[in-house]
C-alpha cells in the first residue's frame, strides 16, 4: 500500500526554486518531488523556508527563480485561484473555516454548486456531496453536515478543512501543521485522513514539527535548513536522530530520490 517513491511522472516537481525577500534569500535552489499516492513530510527549523516553499506551490508567493511542474507539465502558479484550477489544494494551519457557517457551506465556499436555469444554490446536491466527501475520509464523528463549524471539535474541524481540499478533486494537497493544536486521539484521526488521501492517489505534502507524526505517516522526508535542502530520506530507512541531525545542521546528507 505504501507508495514507493515517485512513480513514472511525479505529481509535483520543483527545480531550482528560489525566493528572495528583499535582501533575505528565503529559499535557494530547492529541488523537490512528490509522486502519486505519496506523502512527503517537509520538515525544518523555524525560518528554514517551509512556509515560503508552501506559499510558492500554492500560489500565494510565486518563486523568483526555478520551475514548477505538475504531472510533468511546466506551470506558473501566480495566485491561489490558479492553484485551485491546477488541482493544488492547501489546508492552512489556521484551517480558514467560517465558524458561523455550517459544514456544507464551508466545504463549498467559493465553489458553490448551482442549479439551472436561475443559478440558485443547489443545497441538496452540495449536501449529499458533503456526506460523500466526509464518508470517503471516514470522518464519521460529524453528526450533521448542517452543524455550525463552531460547534465541532478540533479534529472534526480539521476533517472539514481536509474534506474541503478534496472538493475540487485535487492532484496535490498541502497540509500546514495539521496536528499542531490537537490532542492525541484527534491527531491519530487526522493522520488517518492523511493516509486516506494517499490511498486516493493524491500527492500529499505535510509540514510538521512533530517527529512522531512525521515518522508515522510519511513515505519520504524532505529536510530544509536555511532555505536549502539538507537531506531527503526514505522514512522507513531512517531514525528520528538522523532527521533531527539534518534539521539542526549536525549532518548533511546527499539528496536521494529528489532528482538532484
Amino acid at each position: 500500500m505504501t507508495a514507493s517513491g515517485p512513480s513514472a511522472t511525479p505529481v509535483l516537481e520543483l527545480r531550482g526554486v528560489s525566493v528572495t525577500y528583499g535582501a533575505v534569500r528565503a529559499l535557494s535552489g530547492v529541488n523537490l518531488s512528490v509522486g502519486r499516492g505519496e506523502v512527503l513530510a517537509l520538515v525544518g527549523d523555524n525560518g528554514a523556508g517551509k512556509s515560503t516553499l508552501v506559499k510558492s506551490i500554492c500560489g500565494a508567493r510565486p518563486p523568483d527563480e526555478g520551475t514548477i511542474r505538475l504531472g510533468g507539465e511546466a506551470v506558473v502558479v501566480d495566485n491561489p485561484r490558479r492553484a485551485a484550477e491546477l488541482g493544488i489544494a492547501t489546508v492552512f494551519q489556521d484551517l480558514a473555516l467560517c465558524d458561523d457557517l455550517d459544514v456544507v457551506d464551508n466545504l463549498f465556499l467559493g465553489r458553490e454548486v448551482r442549479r439551472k436555469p436561475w443559478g440558485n444554490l443547489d443545497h441538496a446536491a452540495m449536501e449529499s456531496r458533503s456526506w460523500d466527501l466526509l464518508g470517503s475520509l471516514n470522518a464519521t464523528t460529524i453528526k450533521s453536515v448542517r452543524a455550525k463549524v463552531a460547534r465541532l471539535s478540533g479534529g472534526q474541524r480539521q476533517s472539514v478543512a481536509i474534506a474541503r481540499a478534496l472538493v475540487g478533486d485535487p492532484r496535490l494537497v498541502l497540509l500546514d501543521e495539521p496536528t499542531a493544536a490537537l490532542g492525541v486521539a484527534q491527531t491519530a484521526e487526522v493522520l488517518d485522513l492523511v493516509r486516506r488521501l494517499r490511498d486516493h492517489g493524491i500527492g500529499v505534502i505535510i509540514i510538521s514539527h512533530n517527529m512522531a507524526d512525521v515518522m508515522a505517516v510519511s513515505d519520504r522526508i524532505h529536510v530544509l535548513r536555511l532555505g536549502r535542502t539538507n537531506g531527503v530520506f526514505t522514512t522507513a530507512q531512517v531514525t528520528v536522530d538522523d532527521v533531527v541531525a539534518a534539521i539542526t545542521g549536525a549532518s548533511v546528507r546527499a539528496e536521494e530520490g529528489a532528482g538532484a
Partner: protein
Amino acid sequence: MTASVSDEPPAVRPWSRLLALPSSGDHGFRTVLIGIVGLWALLYALNPRFLTVGNLSNLLLQIAAVAVLSMGAVIVLVLGEIDLSMGSVSGLCAAVMAVVNTKMGIPAPLAVVAAILCGLAIGVVHGVVVTRFGVPSFVVTLGGLLTWQGVQLAVLGEQGNLNITDTFIVSLTSTYVPTWLGWTVTLLASAYLLTPVAIRRLRRGRPSRERTSWPKLLLTRVPVVALVLAGGALLVNHRGIPLVVLIVLAVAALMSYVLTHRRVGRHLYAIGSNAEAARRSGVRVDRIKVAAFACTSGLAALGGILAASRLFAVNQSSGQGSLLLLAIAGAVIGGVSLFGGVGTVWQALLGSLLIGSIANGMDLLSMPSSYRFTVTGAVLVLAVVIDAMARRRAARRG
C-alpha cells in the same frame, strides 16, 4: 450516500432537548418571539385596546419605515460592519424625492426611483471608501451621518419643509389592498409555508435516523400557518391589509431569497464570519462589501420614502432623532449579531415589531416618551445579555 455515518447515538443529551435550550443560530428568533408574546400579554392586561385589530393594524403602519431600515442594517451587520448613516440617508433621499416631485414636477414613481438610486449611490461611496482605503465602516458612516444630513438641509433649501401632496406617494402608507388581493397573498403565503420545499429545509443535513418525520414537521408548521391565516383574515376583514405591509414583506422575502439561495448571500455570511478565509476561498470580498453598503443605503432610502409618505412631508428633522438607533436596535434585539456572520431578515422584522409594540403600547397608556426610551433601551440590553449568555452556553457545550 449516508452509509458511512457512525452508529453511535447523537451526543445531544435528552434533558437539553427537553428544555429546548437555545443554541447559537436560532436562539435570537425564539427569544424575541417569546418576548413579543409576553409584552403583548402585559400590554393587553394594562389596556385591552392594545390587542384590537385596529390598533395592531396601526402598529404595522407605525413600524414599516423602521423595519425597512432594520432589514438594511442586517446586510451590513452580517458582514461585521455597521452603517450609522442610515437615518441621514433616509432623510436625504426622502428630500430628494420631494424636491424632484414637487419642485421639478417629475412624476412621483420616477421620483421614488430617483431617491432609491440616490441611496444606492451613497452606499457605493461608503463601500468604496471602506474597501479602498481600509477605513472602518464606523468612521466612514459616522462621517456620512453628518455629511448627508448637511446635504439634506441644502436640498430642502430655505424654508426647510416640503409638503407631500402627491397621491401616489401618500398612498404608499395609507392604502389598504382590496379583499381579493389580501386573501390571495394570505393563502399563497400559507401554502408556501406548508410546501415540501419550505419544510425540507428543516430536515436537511441530518442522517436519516435523526430526521424528524414528515407528519411531525407538518405539525410544527401548523401554528405558524395558523398565525399567518388568522392575521391575514383579521386584517382583511378590518380595513384590508395595508399596502405598506405587503411592501415590507415583499422586500423581506426578496432579501431572504438572496441571502439563502444565491451565492452572494452565502458569501456575505462567510465574509462576516472569517473575511480572510473567504478571500482565500476565492470570494470577491471587496466587491461584495461595496454592494452590501449600496443595498443598505438603498433600503434606508426606501424607509425614508415610507416615513415621508406617512408624515405627508419632508423636513429638516426627517431621518434624525432615534430612527437610526431604533433600526439597529431592532436588528440586534431580533438576534442579528454585531460581530458578523449571524442574522436573518426575519429576525430584524420581529425585533422591529417588538420595539414598535413598546412605543405603541406606551402611547396607549399615555406614558411620557421618557419612559419609552428607557424601556426600549432596557429591552435592547436585555436582549443582548440573553444572546451573550446563550452564546457562552453554546461555546461551553461545543
